[in-house]
């Protein structure tokens, strides 16, 4: 796997075409994201996750790959974000600058992604515990894709 995945068809995008907003949630935090491509919206939600943990992300760190397979696009999004959190804890890095491609392969939805792992020593960050299915939305729109994900803080 490379930094710029090319094995999953995703409309030709490299998944960095998205935008996100942090949304109010009483105890937790929600991310609303849009993008031209499915991979783009996955990466945009992950960038929202990063923003929920850290206000200013430095430019340090090496990229690392993330790959998940799941039975549906929603499950793939859930597993991808869970994997970002898992990698954060075991690599001791803040995953940032996410890139992702998402598409169907042999009956499964495959996410081929990467993130830049900012060493914890370089950053002041807060914990986000987990991704949740609560109120999750992932939908195709006239302009591309939108997603809404609540994270447990």
């Amino acid at each position, binding site marked *: 796997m490379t930094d710029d995945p090319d094995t999953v068809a995703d409309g030709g995008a490299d998944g960095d075409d998205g935008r996100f907003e942090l949304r109010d949630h009483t105890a937790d935090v929600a991310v609303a994201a849009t993008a031209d491509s499915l991979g783009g919206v996955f990466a945009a939600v992950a960038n929202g996750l990063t923003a929920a943990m850290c206000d200013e992300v430095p430019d340090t760190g090496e990229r690392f790959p993330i790959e998940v397979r799941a039975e549906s696009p929603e499950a793939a999004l859930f597993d991808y974000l*869970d994997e970002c959190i898992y990698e954060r804890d075991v690599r001791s890095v803040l995953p940032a600058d996410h890139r992702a491609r998402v598409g169907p392969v042999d009956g499964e939805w495959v996410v081929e992604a990467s993130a830049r792992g900012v060493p914890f020593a370089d950053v002041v960050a807060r914990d986000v515990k987990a991704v*949740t299915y609560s109120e999750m939305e992932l939908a195709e729109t006239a302009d591309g894709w939108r997603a809404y994900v609540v994270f447990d803080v």
Partner: protein
Amino acid sequence: MTDTPETREFDGVELRKVREFVWEIPQSGGMNAPARVLASDALLDQIADDNTLQQLRNSTHLPGITKYAVCMPDGHQGYGFPVGGVGATDTTDGCISPGAVGYDINCGVRMVRTNLTYDDVRGTEEELVDSLFANVPSGLGGGGVVEGDADTVEAILERGMEWALEEGYATEDDLAHCEDEGRRPDARPEFVSQKAKDRGRNQIGSLGSGNHFLEVQRVTDVFDGEVAEAFGLREDQIVVLIHCGSRGLGHQVCTDYLRRIEKRHGDLLERLPDKELAAAPAGSELADEYYGAMCAAINFAWVNRQLITHRTRRVFERVFRMDADELGMELLYDVAHNIAKREVHEVGVDADGTAVAEADAVDHEERELYVHRKGATRAFPAGREEVPPAYRDVGQPVIIPGSMGAGSYVLVGGAESLPETFGSTAHGAGRVMSRTAAKQEYWGETVQDELRDQDHIYVKAQSGATVAEEAPGVYKDVDEVVRVSDALGIGDKVARTFPVCNIKG
């Protein structure tokens, strides 16, 4: 002419007033039982301000839910199941729901007594808060008190605080004053995934961040002298409160089982109004595996809080130049907030012996239930065998942390908790403002300065944003929460504490 019950409606959810502080959402549609909200008018307005009521109603769709689902006075919107929610499901034909426990399994709180008075501490607050902050791991990536290998993690999951005792991090007295003596016998580490164990390895003995904290407090009020004496509390005494959970290990256990249940029990999931309520049918392989894994994560959380206690004792010894025994640093109690436990409760049944809503009951029988408490505290009264011998004659201590500007309460399990709430009460003040709104409303350094200058409360955190997100103004009025608990007799007031210094991740 008959009296019409008082009703209120919030976004399509109608509540009928049962009596003072007790509101009921009647059973309808796909609900398997009614739901109740325990709140004053002021708290009900706050509870109804987000999706708490909708989530509470959704939770009654769980199979086998018994009597009613209950929202505590500090309830607020969570994910799937509301925070402050209690739901009891039958262990034979009901279900167990990871979403109704929450991601932070055995997120909980413990209180450590000292022999110090506030006068002993005044003048040392900055040294104390700096030393605690330097020695108690907190925040993201702060490591743990112990750097664990695979065997260490297995032993903690299996034996809980017994491991801490063997390793010199706990005393016999600590175990005697912890819920379940700090070990869930049903723990099955083999059902905890390798991913979860990987995440836990470098977080053993760490606060984390969010609403987790360590706070030195002084006892300002004693309301029940007899029970306070049994708890070893007196006015002006210094105590330490530690609030945290099972860290990444527990979060991963919940995530893993939500996904496994989604794949295995999709038919049940399709009948539930929220995917986050995913539940495994009682008696299924996944129900048993989740229960074993959750119990192992409960053990991990108890050890987590124990290692922080150990480190806190060392800090106090250095600052006050006395050993922990001389300082009287004994564990008062440790309670869980996010947990499901097999417990036996009396439930109403119909003529066929089927559990039914109280209004339809013709008799009562004892049933074993999975009591899910998510952001709620067990509050057993005197006499329940699960209460440790040290407190069995007075009832279980209940610790209700408030915000870092408002103080906290110690309650005792109330006699009405068993018939009203499956032996439960509130777990804190409960949020009213989102984290994003809090960061727009407050500036962390300003909050810290005001707390120090106006209230003599010393706060130190990894991040100013965390202080802003946890500013006193983002929480409900803890006094009002406790007033409702006390008035309903589910958790009775014993003592009140006020912060001296506080560290956060």
